[in-house]
């Protein structure tokens, strides 16, 4: 059973076709990359999967369930979590609060019990607090838990965003340019980190990345988009030697 499958998804904005008939299949526990030149439609693709946009045509299946056109929060509840290209943390809130918020959806307490703080609610609150702290420990941010999240350095903000996404208990984690703005040392660490969380949380990972070293290093299979059309898919090796990909990236006379 494929964990995520897209069936000829197309996204049109007025006269512009951002993504055209994109087919894709991700198996459980894979690490898949999506690459392409700027404006190729990669983020649009992510936005369709996470419900920000409804595809103009085509269907998206998550664990064989049709999720086309579902609302973003419903999709998160089903088990797809994401990070953003231009980090979107809850800036004024503390690092710990950022992660705690991601647990809200699965808390299962109603408004009333959260106000009068029933024993049941206290127990749940304690549990999510422990879980969030352990997630922060995993990403190495535990001693910064009370800092304002916007005060963290860039690389740590990226890690916090991943920790926050993990707190929603996802099955599929979607990372939009996780290595953007990282130096070689940091991107090496990131690669290890991605593999590590895949194993530890039994995840499937789907990522957009421009950093070729990271993509080729960590991904098991890669899809290549150009002008909204899939031009290639395969292992990193196949992609590196694919003529169409080289053309798209380097141009042709």
């Amino acid at each position, binding site marked *: 059973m494929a964990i995520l499958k897209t069936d000829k998804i197309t996204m049109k904005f007025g006269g512009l076709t951002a993504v055209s008939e994109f087919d894709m299949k991700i198996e459980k526990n894979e690490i898949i990359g999506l690459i392409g030149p700027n404006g190729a439609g990669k983020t649009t693709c992510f936005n369709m999967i996470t419900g920000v946009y409804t595809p103009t045509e085509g269907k998206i299946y998550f664990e064989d369930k049709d999720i086309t056109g579902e609302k973003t*929060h419903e999709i998160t509840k089903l088990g797809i979590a994401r990070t*953003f290209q231009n980090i979107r943390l809850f800036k004024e809130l503390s690092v710990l609060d950022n992660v705690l918020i991601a647990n*809200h*959806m*699965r808390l299962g307490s109603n408004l009333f019990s959260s106000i009068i703080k029933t024993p049941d*609610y206290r127990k749940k609150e304690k549990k999510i607090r422990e879980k969030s702290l352990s997630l922060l420990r995993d990403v190495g941010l535990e001693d910064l838990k009370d800092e304002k999240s916007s005060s963290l350095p860039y690389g740590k903000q990226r890690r916090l965003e991943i920790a926050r996404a993990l707190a929603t208990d996802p099955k599929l984690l979607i990372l939009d340019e996780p290595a953007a703005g990282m130096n070689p040392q940091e991107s090496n660490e990131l690669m290890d980190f991605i593999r590590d969380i895949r194993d530890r949380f039994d995840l499937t990972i789907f990522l957009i990345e421009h950093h070729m070293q990271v993509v080729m290093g960590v991904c098991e299979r890669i899809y290549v988009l150009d002008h909204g059309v899939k031009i290639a898919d395969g292992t990193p090796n196949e992609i590196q030697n694919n003529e169409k990909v080289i053309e798209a990236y380097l141009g042709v006379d």
Partner: protein
Amino acid sequence: MSKKTKLTLISIIACIGILFILNSTLGSYQLRILNLCGIYVILALSLNLINGFVGLFSLGHAGFMAIGAYTSALLTMPPEAKEMNFFLKPIVPWLANVQLSFPIALFMAGVLAAGAGVLIGAPVLRLKDDYLAIATLGFSEIIRVIFTNTQSITNGALGIKGLPYIGIFNKASEAIWWTWGVAIITIIFMALLINGSYGRAFKAIREDEIAAEAMGINLFKHKLMAFVIGSFFAGIGGALLGHLMGTIDPLMFRFLLTFNIVLIVVLGGIGSITGSVISAVIVTIAMEALRVLDGDMQIGSYIIKGIPGTRMVVFSALLMIVIIFYQRGIMGTNEFTWDWILKRQKKISEPLNKEKVS
């Protein structure tokens, strides 16, 4: 019981003690201002939940207050008083003989305002920022116009006079326990709400809607929740205000009333319960204290004729200064917490202890 709960209980008892002393020593004019302070605390907190914590720029507060005030007035007034009020056109029969006790009417005022909150919130909460502000402002004006024209229910532009005193024993000295009692309950309610999981979700929506939604928070549901809670307390605040004034008419619930509450919230710090409480008390007292500005002023031998409303110029200027130079207001998004006090105390006592040792 934890140390913090004990401290909270002690301070509540202290508050009650202070109110008791004030209630028996202050004159009726000062007591009236004190009551008004309590009511503005309720109103500021309810608006701060919507504007400050969820980040929805709503300007419809006067509308919810009007609903609360009229509901409570019509439910508590004795049938004879209603008959005297409605001399142009008699009151509708199903309201003519209703007379409920004050607490029930007060609760109903909140419930009806909350109901209006659902009705207005469901369509307009899909809007954002300025559009939401305009839509809610429009709503509060619509309520006012409706109340002016439903002669047989609200007595139209004539308004309703002779509302019973706040309370069940029909005594003036009772009012303070109701206004500040409800205010303290509101403070505790808001503090518990904001510090819970739902409060965190509200703040997440304020910080970044797209990220909040991606974290599985149902935006519409949570916005509506906050909006309805806010309008519930606005209805109760409006009802208390109506009973305190003794007279209500649609003109009372103009935009200016919403403006006063927005002013309190902005001065206190958008997104701070403590700030709203402090600022509500300060602004309410200042509004009375600055009444001298409305009267004639004598500079040397020259007399400047008083213009009613001059004191509002001071507040408008203050609001502009705060927005330009000190957007955080009194408290920013900070709160008064026992942790903060205990930490302070430790800091002060630690060096002392060291000195003792050496």
